[in-house]
């Protein structure tokens, strides 16, 4: 009798938990892979395709499916470090087959040479180029990710990738990078003496 009671109680418990879990699985279903979103957060969103995937999100999906984390040159070491923390994979140096870390750049169209062919507009992954057929095109510099993808399609090669100059407001207090260091360099003192 007691055996039967035990079996009965356990089955009831199993049934209840089964129902709860079943309900939770339907009610709190997570659409998509949250890991992909987290990886996508970390990637620099240049959408340059240097990793071999057509954009950052596809690469995020690939990483979630086990691809290497060192294929993103625009993100560089910092991104690899963060991805390593998130995925638990070993932080390898950047895979040079996919390019090297470079300074941030922005596309610039030499406007008097633009013929208005719209090819760069079609190539831009973030719609950062304005223009229309037979009208001059121009890059919205603030939206440009510096991905380089518009340079090749241009039939008249009128697109340059220009390094973004450092502005005083965004200077990172790199005292060593100031051309003349007053404390040590004699140039400044020469100037001062010359007064």
């Amino acid at each position, binding site marked *: 009798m007691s055996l039967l009671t035990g079996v009965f109680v356990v089955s009831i418990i199993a049934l209840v938990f089964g129902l709860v879990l079943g309900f939770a699985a339907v009610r709190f279903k997570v659409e998509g892979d949250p890991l992909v979103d987290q990886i996508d957060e970390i990637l620099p*969103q240049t959408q340059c395709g240097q990793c071999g995937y057509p954009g950052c*999100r596809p690469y995020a999906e690939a990483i979630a499916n086990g691809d290497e984390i060192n294929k993103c040159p625009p993100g560089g070491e910092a991104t690899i470090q963060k991805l390593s923390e998130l995925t638990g994979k070993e932080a390898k140096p950047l895979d040079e087959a996919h390019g090297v870390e470079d300074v941030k750049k922005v596309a610039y169209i030499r406007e008097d040479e633009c013929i208005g062919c719209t090819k760069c507009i079609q190539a831009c*992954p973030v719609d950062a180029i304005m223009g229309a057929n037979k009208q001059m095109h121009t890059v919205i510099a603030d939206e440009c*990710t510096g991905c380089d993808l518009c340079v090749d399609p241009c039939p*008249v090669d009128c697109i340059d990738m220009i390094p973004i100059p*450092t502005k005083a407001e965004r200077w990172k207090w790199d005292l060593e990078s100031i051309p*003349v260091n*007053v404390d040590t360099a004699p140039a400044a003192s020469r100037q001062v003496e010359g007064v």
Partner: protein
Amino acid sequence: MASAIKIWSFPGGVHPPERKTLANQTATATTELPEKVYVPVKQHIGAEGQLLVQPGDTVLRGQALTQPGMSGGLPVHAPSSGTVINIAEHTSNHPSGIPTLTITIKLDGKHESIEFTAVENPLEQSPQELIKYIREAGIAGLGGAAYPTAQKLSQTQNTELLIINGVECEPYIVSDDRLMREHAEEIVSGITILQSALQAQQTIVAIEDNKPEAIQAMRQAIESASIEAAVAVVPTKYPSGGEKQLIQLLTGKEVPSNGYPSDMGILMQNVGTAYAIHEAIYLGKPLMERIVTLTGEALQKPGTVWALLGTPVSHLLDSASLQASSKQKVIIGGPMMGYTISDLEVPVVKSTNCILCPTESELPATGHEMACIRCGQCEQVCPASLLPQQLYWYAKASDHDALKQHHLKDCIECGACAYVCPSEIPLVHYYRKAKAEIREELIEQQKADIARQRFEARQARLEREKQARLEKHKKAAEARQAALAARAAAAEADPTEQSTADTAANNGEKQSKVAAAIARAKAKNAAQAESATAEDDKKARVAEAVARAKAKKAAQAESATAEDDKKARVAEAVARAKAKKAAQAESATPEDDKAKQSSQQSDNAEAEKKRRVAAAVARAKAKKAEQQKQQNSVTTSERGDSESS
């Protein structure tokens, strides 16, 4: 009333040697006009204004050189008369020395002014009007941060307490001290404008107790002007002149970590700003000059001067007779928060309150940085109650999350921690670097978010367009099917066709099916041709444009362009005509074939077929022409390249 103000206290703080007597003994001097002035377009926090002048323009003293543009910003004004000789990048008065857009004016020495018009009955003007005048005068906070004053005033609502900051706690600097001694009445008059613009309920002028003459002067001026204001004397301690620290001293309340004084109904202005407001409103003078302390033992004639904004630092040091040593430092600001400059041609800007030239023995170069011994002295002196040693460790490790948790952003970079550090660690430098890195990370993150949104929006758009295209094709196919079915029904009803089909072949049904298939294919081709014609035309024109551009590049006659255009159009028209002709000719041949296959067809169907074939041929011709043109353009460009190389 003055004695009624209770002085509270703030945590931490240090008492470095004051060294103020070096420069505050003599009256403020005026310097000779420099040969040139360098006026940076942006001298305040926020957006820069739009240029109003060009190289070669002559400008008068007080003339606006920029105006607030789309994104706001403050104007800058010519400090003296002369000619604009250059508008280009010039070394900035900034710790980085990164060049910024600067208007260089060669002064003519006449010092001619525009006509300054004072505001009439300023105290009866509305606050908005007053703020507008203050903005037009280009006034930014003269205490050091150069925050646009008009912006600060308009952001503040329901001001309970207006604090006029004459504390000037940093060693060496005596600009505000001298200003209060010499121009107390003007400062008080500026305070009345501020009171009127803010409808402030209470006004306190705060001065450190090491400036008895300034306190005396301000008290007298307030009394004689009989305005509602009190002078609060605060004990000398660094950094009691910091905005948050002074508020704590006067009210006992702390400005919350993410908040601003305006959230508490408090607004603070520097005495220099009050003076500039007086000048702007009562005299109509924009901000063109400021008082600068020239001090340090390396100067033979230290003191305060009225310096035109844009005066090169070298000119001022000249006037103060600098005895430079081999390792002479020139510091903008004071010894605690100032920065050394690398080029003496940098201009005086709105925020430059002091130029310090210490001798080697007076302010020794920082020694070798040693390891942190966790003595905890920095924590004792931090006026913001932070943990400097922890911040130091995290900054060294670039642990931005931990830095945020330890409230790095509340650090006012006063330098008290570095001042007491026995290991001579340049703590503030670490914090500044870390702050810059965090800021940069945030900017990158924001940019990445925007890029992601734009990328996803684009993907969605492409997908949408693809679906629309598929939908269109599907509909067109259905329409064709329907048309074909209708035609087949019509053909069946026609007995003549039936009979010819029977006589032509044994398997009439099969034949008609083949004919139907051919007709379908033709219809499809024609439909595509129709949709493509417009695009092809466009493409052909683009190709033409390429050819034109290339031709132009190859440095052919400029006048030829219009002719070329005409020619190209004529050629195009000829090509079109030819295509049409050819199409007509060609359409005759398949017609014969078809006559053999199905000998009789209605006139209607024949005409339609003809039209379709003509369209298809025209399309092909257009494509061919385009290809040819592209080839031409390639050869042209190759030729152009080889010529240019």
